[in-house]
């Protein structure tokens, strides 16, 4: 079986398992899974960028764009359908990424990181000072239907959860396919030596630009799903600490597999809810120490542990 088929099969099993578990999960656990998948989507975009050799400290920009776009669609444009809101959020974020990519695609290494950070802080500053979008408080978002079904009663309660798991599944499969395509395989080549990639006849800037748009769209989906699940958006989503958390998840899970960011985000969210209850003031200490340990001892992320064992076995 090819690795692509195996990955898709693994993801499909995870999808079915999550869907089957829905009636058994208490409300808080369901919420936790949704938020993890949403953050996992943003981290999935970072995975693509990291394979291209870029670390963005500004994915919060697209995350917030997706969330606000979903909110504006529901409140001002009267699009109350959850699926449409998520699609709109992703599309808005992709549009912003396409625009900023004109500039960002020219930058590498820390300059890329700093410029993406600056852009996300610009959005943060804009949102905080825009009364129409609720300034520092943000505003409430309430999806009403999903594909025509009401979200308020009956099986509709699982609507957002369904949107989250199916978006995560769809994005992971498509991204996996993309990573194995001609364009996707250029990403690690660009990371290794972009001048040689250009000598081979490929346009580095176009590939980087495309990857920025894909990563932006993924973060936008994540943001829109978060807006649906929380029922509220605020400027903190664009603040650099939000972006830092995505980087954290991406580093922790590594770039080996498209499933890794979701697993990483889930572990992080579970640890967080546990730590908030028992040691609210030393939670970041643990997070920082874990990140250091991964950077120092497992440079390819936690997922690489599985891979190493598998290679050793065969």
């Amino acid at each position, binding site marked *: 079986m090819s690795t692509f088929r195996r990955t898709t099969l693994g993801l499909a099993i995870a999808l079915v398992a999550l869907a089957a578990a829905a009636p058994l999960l208490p409300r808080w656990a369901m919420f936790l899974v949704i938020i993890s998948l949403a953050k996992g989507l943003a981290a999935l975009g970072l995975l693509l960028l990291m394979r291209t050799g870029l670390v963005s400290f500004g994915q919060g920009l697209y995350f917030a764009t997706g969330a606000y776009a979903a909110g504006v669609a529901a409140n001002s444009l009267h699009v109350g359908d959850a699926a449409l809101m998520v699609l709109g959020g992703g599309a808005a974020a992709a549009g912003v990424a396409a625009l900023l990519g004109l500039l960002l695609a020219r930058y590498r290494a820390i300059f890329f990181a700093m410029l993406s950070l600056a852009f996300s802080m610009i959005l943060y500053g804009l949102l905080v*000072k825009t009364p129409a979008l609720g300034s520092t408080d943000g505003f409430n978002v309430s999806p009403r239907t999903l594909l025509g079904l009401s979200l308020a009663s009956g099986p509709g309660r699982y609507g957002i959860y369904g949107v989250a798991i199916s978006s995560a599944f769809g994005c992971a499969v498509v991204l996996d396919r993309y990573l194995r395509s001609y364009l996707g395989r250029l990403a690690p080549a660009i990371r290794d030596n972009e001048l040689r990639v250009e000598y081979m006849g490929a346009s580095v800037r176009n590939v980087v630009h495309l990857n920025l748009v894909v990563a932006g769209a993924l973060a936008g989906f994540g943001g829109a799903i978060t807006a649906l699940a929380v029922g509220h958006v605020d400027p903190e989503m664009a603040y650099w600490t939000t972006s830092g958390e995505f980087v954290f998840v991406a580093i922790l899970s590594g770039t080996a597999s498209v499933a890794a960011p979701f697993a990483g985000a889930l572990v992080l969210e579970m640890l967080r809810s546990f730590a908030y209850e028992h040691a609210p003031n030393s939670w970041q200490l643990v997070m920082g120490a874990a990140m250091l340990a991964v950077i120092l001892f497992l440079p390819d992320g936690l997922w690489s542990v599985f891979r190493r064992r598998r290679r050793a076995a065969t």
Partner: protein
Amino acid sequence: MGTILAVLVDGVIYASWLFIIAAGLTIVYGVMRILNMAHGSLYALGAYAAASLAGAWLRAGLAPIGTYAMLVLAAGIVGVVVGPLIERGLLRHVYGRDEVVLVLVTYALFLMIEDAVKLVWGVESYFVTEPYGLLGNVELGPLSYPVYSGILVLAALVVGVALRFGIYGTRYGKLLIAVIHDREVSAALGINVNRVYLVTFTLGTMLAALGGALTAPTVSVVPGMGVEVIVLAFAVVVIGGLGSMPGAALGALIVGLVRSASVHFIPQVELFSIYLVMALVLAFRPRGLFVAPEARKI
């Protein structure tokens, strides 16, 4: 006329504060190639240490004028204790890694220090307003400014002159320049590069802490106060050019004036005007105002 004067004075005061912090960030990057995300946390550490020391001084019933010495002493202590601890304990093991990896390492450090501060000082806020109010106000035409702001400007000037003299006028400064230009050749020539790194990071930490210590009397010292500072300092050094000391000075002045101008004329854009300038500078001078572009290597 009054507004213009206010913009200039506010801008210079803000720039002085920024310069002290950004100077530490840029010198650490220039010598060690580490863009230190934990710089804001070191700033917060300085503020907490200053609040504690100055508070202890006042509680002991000593003359309030001595609190100024306490502020500086706090910065010194944080630099000498925390700087070597981080450099020896952590950074030493990651030298030579990719610059982006180093950013991530210091990001992890940032997370850890943020909580370490909460564990040591708790989550309540601290106040030491004595040094701020002690000197009264000074009239500047139609405007009234606290004399303490003048001390801040003075401190920035002292830091700038001392760094300039220290780097270009002393033997150790020349060693530093050699290390900045080529680490390996310097080591081969017999310069103790490890010690230069240690001294540099201690100095950088001290400057961050000094920025925090001098700010402590003007604000309430609370958890998370370093979070915003780090992105501001980034903006300053990126505008001037990473690793460039004149760049840090000019960047601080630009950011300071832009911010005070936007506060006075269009307050809605205050928060993002700085980052807008940073993005604009990066768009036209990708390596900042004071650093020449680098050729691409095959």
